[in-house]
């Protein structure tokens, strides 16, 4: 099945257009072009922000690259056009070749005629006593023993009397493997297109202990997209190897439908959660406020000490008329002095302004030295809280892509490792020796001929032994 010649040449513009689109030369051209242009996008960073590009390129280079689509080239119109041409090429080519392949597939050759015999590379000749061939049915079952396959018997009147034709084949459908591969390319394209039209990608950050019911898409105008259910992050944790390399990130997630928990799963990198058509992947994390334990020491009021638990960002009222306190923010390493909390203190007295100061976890005495007010704050404990960063995805095309990939792999296996093997045996009366038949055995395989040649010889050897 090499490049088949068209049966009749179509003429005119339509004909030459069809010939152009179904040609293998176009295929080679497109595949090589795809290989070459794909290189561009691996050299020029793709889909970055304008500011990032301006670090490597000047303004006019940037504008030019953007105009020709080199900054998002795999989605540029011309790249998509090359892919579309490949798809058209593939369809036109199959349109041209498939009917012929199907014809041969559905019309197996059961008669060994002179043309076939002449073209054959594997031929064996011998003779057989005519009475042995008197019962073709038993002859056929012997053949089935010699070479299992679907044997067919045809009786025909030839030039020198009644001819007995036996034909068998194996792996006929392997001829269709290539078409299966070609179809799979189209299926993968289809899956990709469906994904790009109906798919959606986004992200959501969930602080530990909180729930969300929507997520955000990437891009300039981030708008929330409803999930249709609620997702809670119960806990996030990160572990490190001794060397400081990250070992594992994980988030305990709970899905709520109508307020009731329905699914609980701990996700990690490589272990996402799927629910309601969306899949959630562990993508990032970050610190998110937290809780601090502080002690407020009063120099007056008998040196009283007031232990407090503060939620970052939430003002807290103190007993009596002692005013308010708030932990404004926490820094992991403020002024290279380790964790610190910025406290806002409003003494709640008329005429005294609220004031801010830092308290350091590692230097509790720092505040005591400050004598401007008659109180000071000691930072006792930091309970950091994280948020988990999830990537949210919905891609209805992905299963079609996997189907296409599976088809391609199976098709490649069939196309490269299976072969269509055929055997023909013809018996004709020997014109010179009455009572004997002339036998011709012919074999053909479309792949892996050397190994089939061995097989053929073994068959011939067995038939020779019939006598």
């Amino acid at each position, binding site marked *: 099945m*090499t*490049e088949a010649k068209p049966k009749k040449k179509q003429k005119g513009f339509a004909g030459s257009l069809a010939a152009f689109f179904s040609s*293998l*030369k176009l*295929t*080679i051209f497109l*595949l*090589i072009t*795809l*290989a070459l242009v*794909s*290189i561009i*996008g*691996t*050299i020029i960073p*793709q889909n970055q922000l304008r500011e990032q590009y301006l670090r490597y390129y000047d303004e006019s280079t940037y504008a030019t690259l953007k105009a020709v689509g080199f900054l998002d080239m*795999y989605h540029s119109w011309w790249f998509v056009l090359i892919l579309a041409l490949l798809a058209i090429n593939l369809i036109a080519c199959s349109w041209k070749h498939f009917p012929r392949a199907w014809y041969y597939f559905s019309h197996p050759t059961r008669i060994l005629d002179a043309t076939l015999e002449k073209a054959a590379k594997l031929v064996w000749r011998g003779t057989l006593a005519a009475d042995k061939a008197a019962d073709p049915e038993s002859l056929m079952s012997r053949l089935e023993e010699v070479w299992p396959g679907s044997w067919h018997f045809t009786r025909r009147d030839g030039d020198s009397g009644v001819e007995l034709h036996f034909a068998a084949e194996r792996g006929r459908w392997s001829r269709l493997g290539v078409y299966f591969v070609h179809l799979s390319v189209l299926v993968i394209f289809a899956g*990709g297109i469906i994904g790009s039209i109906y798919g959606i*990608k986004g992200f959501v950050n969930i602080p530990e202990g909180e729930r969300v019911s929507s997520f955000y898409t990437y891009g300039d105008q981030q708008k929330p997209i409803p999930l249709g259910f609620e997702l809670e992050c119960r806990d996030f944790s990160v572990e490190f*190897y001794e*060397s400081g*390399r*990250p*070992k*594992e*990130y994980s988030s305990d997630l709970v899905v709520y439908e109508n307020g009731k928990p329905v699914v609980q799963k701990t996700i*990690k*990198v*490589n272990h*996402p959660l799927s629910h309601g058509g969306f*899949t959630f*992947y*562990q*993508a990032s994390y970050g610190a998110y406020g937290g809780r601090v334990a502080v002690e407020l020491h009063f120099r007056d009021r008998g040196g009283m000490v007031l232990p407090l638990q503060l939620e970052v960002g939430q003002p807290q009222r103190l007993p009596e008329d002692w005013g308010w306190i708030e932990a404004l923010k926490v820094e992991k390493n403020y002024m290279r002095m380790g964790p610190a909390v910025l406290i806002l203190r409003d003494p709640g007295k008329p005429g005294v302004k609220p004031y801010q100061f830092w308290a350091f976890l590692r230097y509790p005495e720092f505040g005591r030295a400050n004598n401007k007010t008659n109180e000071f704050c000691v930072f006792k404990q930091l309970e950091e809280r994280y948020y988990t960063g999830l*990537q*949210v*995805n919905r*891609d209805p095309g*992905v299963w079609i*892509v*996997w189907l296409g*990939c599976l088809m*391609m*792999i199976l098709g*490649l*296996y069939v196309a*490269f*490792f299976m072969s269509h093997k055929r055997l023909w045996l013809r018996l004709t009366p020997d014109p010179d020796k009455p009572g004997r038949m002339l036998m011709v055995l012919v074999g053909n395989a479309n792949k892996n001929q050397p190994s089939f040649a061995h097989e053929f010889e073994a068959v011939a050897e067995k038939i020779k032994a019939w006598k």
Partner: protein
Amino acid sequence: MNTYIFSIVTFVYMAAMVVYVAYLAFRRPVVARLATIILLGGWLAQTTAIGLRWYESYEMGIGHAPMSNLYESLVFFSWTIILLYLIIEYRYKLSILGAFVTPFAFLGMAYASISPSVNETIQPLVPALQSNWLISHVVTCFLGYAAFAVSCGVSITYILKKRYEERGGKGGLMAAFPSSEVLDELVYKSIAIGFPLLTIGIVTGAAWANYAWGTYWSWDPKETWSLITWFIYAAFLHARITRGWRGVKAAVLSIIGFVAVIFTYLGVNLLLSGLHSYGGG
């Protein structure tokens, strides 16, 4: 321990390569025998060392298949090349190809052992690499790459032989090689093995990416280069059945294909940036 064996294996492969070249020159069956024995010995030692490294990683409490950084992948690549070559030599009795295939394995090992930019220590896996997909992805890719290494070696031989035949050459070194048709068939065979493996490698990579990051294809440079390689070999397969593209042109395509393989494997990490792991060496 394992790295020590690997450096010995490098020298064994070099010795095998030299003997294969000697076989090219002298064409004595004994020499070919010797080359095969040396190569097989080296390969068995390498197999042992890979097993040992795997075991050692578990001893260290960070157990994982030894395929996770540049050093380990270079070693594994050489291993698959020799494995595939030994199978081909055994099946087709073509010791003559050894001189063209063993250099790839030797260079891989030498680069791994000598280059200061390649870190030999067993390192823990970062979260993204902790996946069962890692093994299937890496193994299929590298088996495919090894098949392409063989096809590249044979393609070079094919072009030399074809030129020689066209000059109506007799005698000399080239006479010892199989006919250009046989070589052409071998190029095709090895690509027919490599192409499906590369396809599976790309598909498992995509499946893994989808599982880890939610996108089966993100045009990351490494992904893109593997696709470029795939395009080139697809072009080769169709070139071979097209009049005017058969023969030397197709062989050149297969050599370019292997250049793309090497770039996918090393160039991308050394020259470009992306998601794949052995970027830092």
